Structure formats: structure tokens, C-alpha cells
């Protein structure tokens, strides 16, 4: 099934095999120039947090230390996100080239792909690509090797410092920050950790130049983005689209005509009700872009038949299990939110208990140790506030 007017881009998934050429080109360039190219392109982290990629590379390149690492974060666990899996299936070599350029810039000799346990079936094909990649490394004379580190089923390991802990043989518990990964990441060494898609984008930027990338999208949200579209849609799947689309347009393209809400950014993202579709843009927060919602690419559409209570309940069950459990607001707060909405729904607590839960969610946002606990409030508040009538007994 397809819709006529859908304007799909074809940067990331285009079959291109000129890694050698890109590498030869970048090998000759000063690191500063490569970093500038990235900064100019406006590329921001595609895992969802949206940190400027060029700046990240710059900080790591400037960090003191002889041993540095490049890590590709392939622990794609956000509900509703599956784009990294597709990128690693279709164009893994682009990701590896991105890692190699990064290694050259920051001075790393070792790189890792942290692959979530659920994607173990990708291992064999990835290992083959990595073998070819190592041949290329020898050919271009770059002392850089990539290994795969396999996860074992823990959503929180997508959080970068938890991912380092996991690689170091520990429970995947996020660290206190500062220090940030560019100062002290894996093995406490300066580390660049980028999402799969981010690295794939660098390939396009190094191939076509930063201007071409920058021409796409809008202020503060440049380039294209790979979206994982699921839920009540006739055309679920993976779509590379230009940044800066309004949610109204998105629903027109992807909805089933009866869309009541869209969850942007997965369980840790925001729920936008129908009445706000036209006022909401998909992209990073910025001064000029108005109400915009960042996303790692997860777009879940719900139609009128769906109970938003059930949706929220499912998210909260997810968080209750996937919180690492170390910090109070996240460990206990998630349980209280889940039991709280159950109690209100069953009439065991009055409807104004939702207000207490909303303020709890807000407190979790400002006190939690890492992005998981901090972002539970996103979905909780946006669903409870917009669909209060569905929450009540």
C-alpha cells in the first residue's frame, strides 16, 4: 500500500559503495575541517537527544588522552523504533565508514557496535561487513578496528553511560554526569558514542557535502530523518523524510483517516492529540521552530478505537520493568504512576489523584538520574492531560 503524495527521500538507504573514496578524501583533510563540515551540516544526534554531532566529535578530538573510542549505539529499544535495525540490515557499511572518519578525527583505534540482544540475528551479516571493512582499513592505512558487543535485553543500556557500564561487565546503570562521554566514556576514556542513523548520515554528508544536508529540513532541524511508523496506519514501515514536517501533514500521509493521537518519540516521547496536529512540528526544539517535538524516529498513530488509558498503561508497564532501579524517582515513581492510574481507573482513588501523579511525573523529570526517568513525564503528562476523561473511572 502506498500513498501518492508521500515524498520519501533516499539518502540513507541508497545503495552506494564509495566508502573508500570518502575515506581517502577525508584522510587528507585536517580534522578541524571535517568537524566544521559536520557542524555546518547541522546534524544532530538521531537517537532522540539531538546533541550536535560535530560538536561531540570536536570535544572528543580535543580531549586529552591517547586512547579513545568510537561507539555505535545500536541498542535500539525505544518502543516504536526499528529504523536502526533496517539501517544495519541495508547499509551497515555506511555506519562503519562514519565510525572510521570519526576514529580518524578523534584519534581512536578501536570501535564498537553495541548491538541489542534482540537483534542478534543481524550478527553474522554484520560480521561479514566488518571483515570487508577491515580490509578497507588496511587499504586506506587507517589503524582502526571495529568489534560487536552484544547486549542482553535491557532498554536502559541505550543510555550512553549505562551502555559503557554494560560493556565494562556491569549492570547497565547510568552514571552521574558530568563527566560526559567525550571526557570520560568507555573505560573512562574520551568516547564518541553515536546512534546508528547519525553515523549513516555522516556518510551522506561526507559524500555530498554539508550544504546538501543543510538544505533539507528547517532551522534547528536539518537534514532528513528516518521514521519508524507504526500503530493504526495502513502503511507501517520505515520512511526517510525531510525534517520539519507538521504533524497534520504526517497524519494525512500516514493515518487511517481516523487518527486521534500520535505518539512522537516512543514511550519516552510525547502524545499529541488531534486538536494539536496542525500546531506541532516534528523536529528539535528551537527558538524559531515553535512547538516542535524531537524524536528518535518513533511515530505511533492511534485511532479513535484505542483507549489511551491502555496505551499509557502499556508504556508505564514498560518503564516499571525497564528502569534500572537505582534512583528513587524512576524506580518508585514509575510504579506509583502505574498503580496510580489503575487506582483512579478502578475508582479506588479520586480523579484528582491524577493531579498528584502529574506533579510526581514533573518531579521525576527534574530529579531522575538519567533520561529514562526524566522522560517518563513526557508521555505520562501529555496523555493524562489530553485524555483525562479516558483515565477516570
Amino acid at each position, binding site marked *: 500500500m502506498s500513498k501518492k503524495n508521500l515524498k520519501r527521500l533516499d539518502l540513507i538507504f541508497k545503495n552506494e559503495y564509495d566508502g573508500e573514496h570518502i575515506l581517502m578524501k577525508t584522510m587528507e583533510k585536517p580534522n578541524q575541517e571535517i568537524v566544521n563540515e559536520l557542524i555546518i551540516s547541522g546534524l544532530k544526534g538521531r537517537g532522540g537527544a539531538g546533541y550536535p554531532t560535530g560538536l561531540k566529535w570536536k570535544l572528543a578530538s580535543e580531549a586529552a588522552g591517547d586512547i579513545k573510542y568510537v561507539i555505535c549505539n545500536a541498542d535500539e529499544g525505544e518502543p516504536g523504533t526499528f529504523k536502526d535495525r533496517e539501517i544495519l540490515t541495508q547499509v551497515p557499511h555506511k555506519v562503519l565508514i562514519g565510525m572510521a572518519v570519526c576514529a580518524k578525527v578523534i584519534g581512536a583505534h578501536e570501535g564498537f557496535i553495541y548491538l541489542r540482544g*534482540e537483534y542478534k540475528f543481524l550478527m553474522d551479516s554484520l560480521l561479514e561487513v566488518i571483515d570487508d571493512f577491515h580490509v578497507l582499513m588496511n587499504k586506506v592505512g587507517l589503524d582502526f578496528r571495529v568489534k560487536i558487543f*552484544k547486549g542482553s535485553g535491557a*532498554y536502559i543500556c541505550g543510555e550512553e553511560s549505562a551502555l559503557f557500564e554494560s560493556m565494562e*561487565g556491569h549492570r*547497565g546503570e547510568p552514571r552521574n554526569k558530568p563527566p560526559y562521554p567525550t571526557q570520560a566514556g568507555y573505560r573512562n576514556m574520551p568516547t564518541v558514542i553515536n546512534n546508528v542513523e547519525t553515523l549513516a548520515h555522516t556518510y551522506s554528508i561526507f559524500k555530498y557535502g554539508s550544504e546538501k544536508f543543510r538544505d533539507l529540513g528547517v532551522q534547528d532541524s536539518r537534514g532528513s530523518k528516518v521514521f519508524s511508523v*507504526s500503530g493504526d496506519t495502513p502503511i507501517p*514501515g520505515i520512511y526517510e523524510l525531510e525534517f520539519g514536517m507538521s504533524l497534520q501533514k504526517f497524519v494525512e500521509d500516514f493515518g487511517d483517516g481516523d487518527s486521534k493521537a500520535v505518539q512522537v518519540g516512543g514511550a519516552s516521547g510525547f502524545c499529541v492529540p488531534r486538536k494539536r496536529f496542525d500546531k506541532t512540528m516534528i523536529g528539535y526544539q528551537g527558538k524559531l521552530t515553535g512547538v516542535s517535538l524531537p524524536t528518535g524516529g518513533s511515530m*505511533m498513530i492511534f485511532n479513535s478505537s484505542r483507549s489511551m488509558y491502555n496505551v499509557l498503561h*502499556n508504556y508505564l*508497564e514498560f518503564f516499571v520493568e525497564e528502569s534500572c532501579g537505582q534512583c528513587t524517582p524512576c524506580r518508585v515513581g514509575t510504579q506509583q504512576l502505574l498503580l496510580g492510574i489503575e487506582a483512579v481507573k478502578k475508582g479506588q482513588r479520586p480523579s484528582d489523584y491524577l493531579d498528584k501523579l502529574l506533579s510526581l511525573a514533573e518531579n521525576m523529570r527534574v530529579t531522575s538520574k538519567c533520561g529514562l526517568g526524566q522522560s517518563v513525564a513526557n508521555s505520562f503528562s501529555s496523555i493524562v492531560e489530553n485524555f483525562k476523561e479516558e483515565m477516570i473511572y
Partner: protein
Amino acid sequence: MTQITNLVKSLADRHGRYNESLLPILQGVVDENKFLSEEAMVEIARELDISAARVYGTASFYSFLNTEPMGKHVIRVCKTITCMMHGKNHIIQEIEKTLKIKLGETTHDGKFTLVETNCLGQCHKGPAMLINDTPYTNLTPEKTREILQSFIENEALSSTTNLN
């Protein structure tokens, strides 16, 4: 030396006796035995010269590192939002009916364990499940039954081959 001692030793030889080898070694044991027994964890602790409690604490953190016995084939049905919306409960019911076990249980012959899991990253093709490491997507009860049947038949086949 017991089978588990040998297994852990060879995994430690392969991955090295560092803290960082803990996860790969745990995964290696689970690949082989489907779960981490008390004995296995003690052996790992001994090989890496760390406390047994630390091995347990780390293993129990990860959903795929089971510390309870599991069947030969572990069926993990995704329970997260879009798979739920698209009927994962019917899939679970079908599996329960076919294998005559409840969620969380292992068949008497030790061949199958059925559990739920969080998002498998197959949301556009839900409902989805993993059997061991292989994803099965766009499931319907019929399709699920067929998949299970092929596993059951293979098992029957391999057991008769063994008898011969």
C-alpha cells in the same frame, strides 16, 4: 571436570579473564545451556576472580540472561504497545493452546518456554516474537501454529534420529 566447568573455562579462554568478559561469558553459557545455573555462575566468578554475588547481580539485570531453567526453544512474545494493539494476546493464547503451557512455563519435555518480552523492534510488523534468536513477524494465530508445528516436527525428527 563437569560440562559446565569446561564450558566456562573455554569461554574464559576465548574472551579473556577480565571484568569486561563477564557479559560475553554469561551470554555464551546461556547460548549453550539456555540459563545460568548456580554452578555456572560460581564457575564464572572463579574464572574472573570476582564475587559470585556480582555475577548474579549482573546476570539478573539482563532479561535475556535467565537464572531459571529454560526450555530448548525460548519463545519471547513482544508485549509492547503496537504488538499489544495488534493482538499479541491472541498469539499467546494460541501458543499456550498448542504447547499446553501457560505464559512463563516450560513444556514437560523441556523443549519450549513461553515468555513475554519488551519491544523487539518489529513494531511495523506486529505482533512479533523471537524464537531463540530468530524474529517471526506479522503473526496470526494460524501462522503461529504453523511455526510451532514445524519446530515440534523437527524435534520429533531429531529424537527419532537420535534413537537410531
